[in-house]
């Protein structure tokens, strides 16, 4: 009898081990995929700068670096390391990381951080800020900051460019109204590539392929 129980126990243990092993493999694979995805997103982010024109006061002189801000829990890891020395439009690029909105609010540094946020040329709002998107966008929406997100309804919340996955491929959608509000000119080439473009009630959706 006892042996039967032992047997059953052994079997469970074995199953657990096997399952946990399998699970660990899957997690590793998922992580690898995730890393690849953010590599692409980082490149996309960099290249957006090429196809977006900032107003004169924000473009400034060539000595000023282009600032890419990342707010929230950073999913990029160290991908930007490889892009560190790359210059865009003859300017160097600086990556600035901000604490999640909630944390800033709790710490009471929201006011002081707001200016820094407004200073950014590009602001990537991480999915961790899903609940505070409206508030963050409200801060920067008139300061010619290209807001980029990766959550549902990002554009509907006033974001300008949103990464959207399509059949495991990274694509993006653009809210032209929001861009206009931010006085940013987005190249027609980029617009053509967008999966969809949101503009004054009417929404253009590119034919999916």
């Amino acid at each position, binding site marked *: 009898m006892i042996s039967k129980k032992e047997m059953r126990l052994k079997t469970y243990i074995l199953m657990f081990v096997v399952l946990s092993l399998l699970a660990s493999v899957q997690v590793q694979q998922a992580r690898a995929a995730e890393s690849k995805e953010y590599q692409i997103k980082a490149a996309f982010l960099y*290249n957006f700068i090429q196809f977006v024109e900032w107003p004169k006061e924000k473009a400034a002189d060539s000595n000023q670096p282009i600032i890419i801000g990342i707010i929230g829990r950073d999913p990029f890891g160290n991908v930007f390391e490889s892009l560190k020395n790359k210059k865009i*439009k003859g300017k160097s690029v600086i990556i600035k990381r901000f604490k999640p909105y909630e944390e800033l609010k709790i710490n009471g540094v929201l006011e002081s951080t707001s200016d820094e946020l407004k200073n950014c040329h590009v602001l990537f709002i991480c999915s961790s800020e899903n609940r505070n998107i409206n508030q963050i966008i409200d801060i920067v929406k008139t300061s010619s900051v290209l807001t980029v997100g990766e959550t549902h309804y990002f554009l509907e919340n006033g974001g300008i460019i949103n990464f959207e996955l399509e059949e495991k491929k990274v694509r993006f959608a653009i809210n032209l109204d929001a861009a206009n509000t931010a006085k940013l000119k987005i190249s027609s*080439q980029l617009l*053509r*590539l967008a999966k969809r473009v949101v503009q004054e009630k009417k929404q253009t959706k590119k034919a999916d392929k």
Partner: protein
Amino acid sequence: MAIPRFQDITIKNKLTAIIMLTSVTALLMGLGAFITWEYFDIKKNMVESLSTHASIIADNTKAAVVYENADDAKEMLSALRAAPSIIHARICTEDNNTLAIFNKDPNDASVHLLQIKKEGYNFTRDSLNLQKNIMLDNEKIGTIYLKSDLSNIKHGVTRTATIGGIIAAIIIFVTFLVSSKLQKIISGPILSLAGVAKDVSEHKDYSTRALKQSNDEVGQLIDAFNEMLYEIQERDLELTHLNEKLEQRVKERTADLMNANKKLEKLNRELEQTVEKLTAANIELADFAHIAAHDLKAPLRAIGSLAGMIVEDYRDKLDENGQKQLNLLTQRTERMSSLINGILKYSEVGQLSNGQEQVDLNQVVEDTILNIAPPENIEIKVENTLPTIISERTHMLQLFQNLLSNAIKYMDKPQGLVKIGCVEEDDFWKFYVSDNGPGIEEKYYDRIFTIFQTLKRRDEVEGTGIGLTMVKKIVTLYNGKIWVESKVGHGSTFFFTLPKQKKEAKKHAKLQTNIVG
């Protein structure tokens, strides 16, 4: 029809041909240059146009390349459908993966190999290939390849050649019209000059003049030609003049000649008449001599017989003086008789009978010697064989008899030698009879052949003075000649010729007719 050589065609056509050839050459060269220029221009334009296309696409596909959006790139490329010459286009990413391909002919799925390794272009046999980098922010992010066919060049060159050809044809036509009008400026005077020259040579009318139309070389030529014509005309005139003079002189001469001829004819007639009269008189004379001699013979014979009878019957009754005179009478009568005989023989010689025959002169000479019976102190020697000739035997006998008897008669040497011989010449025989007698003085050479002439007194040597005359008459009758060579005291040689057979016969016949006439 044979194509005439260029040298042989008329100046008019030559000029037109030269002008046409020159302008056509220039035109073709121009056309060739223009087509060549057009060819390179089209090529250049093609490169520029293709390069522009490439630039536009490169510019517009930056984002598509960066974001590797094949659909968008493809859509951009599909705009190339508007450019008919582009047959293939391709966009590659920086790591040379093909992002989008455009083929003008969708069925043409064949992979178009692009040989260019760096930015630029090249021409292959049937295409123009161009490669352009797609740059983003001074960085190469991809490449665009374009391939164009060369139909543009073909069409362009064809079009240029067609238009050029049509223009050239029009120009050539107009040039032909203009040149065929303008060549008259040069060919006109030359042709008119040629026409005048032809006219002159055909009609020999040297009064014609070529019309001078210009002061150039042709004008000078026409001047020279006219001057030449003038000179020819002058000479022609002079010649005509001379000719007329000459004709006049010829006429005069002819008239003179005619006159002379008439005179001559008249003279001739007179002469003929005289000859006729003379011949008649001659014959009459000969007849008279013959008749007279013949008639004198009978009384003379009577006188002779009577004298003889007197001598016989009255010899004793006559004194010596009477006898002497009677003897003289007999002698004179005999001389008279021999004279009359001689005259008879002489007159008979002129009358040739038809008794012509082959006469062997050796025989004749032999008979003659026998007949004469020369004295012992005289030797007659025939030095070579004599020929046989056609003649009257009597004549030949008389000939040799007279000559031989003459030689014997006058022989004054104690040992006389008479030689007879003959030498054959080209168309006659030359005979000789030579003696070593007294010889004859040169002044008598002609006289001895005259009738009744003797060099010695009749009393010294009995001679009638007829013998040599008869010899001459016979020789002359046979168309021969007779002459004498002599050295006084040493002897004489009588030469005479007789023509050879055939000619002799002919002349003989002629002689006969003459004598009969």
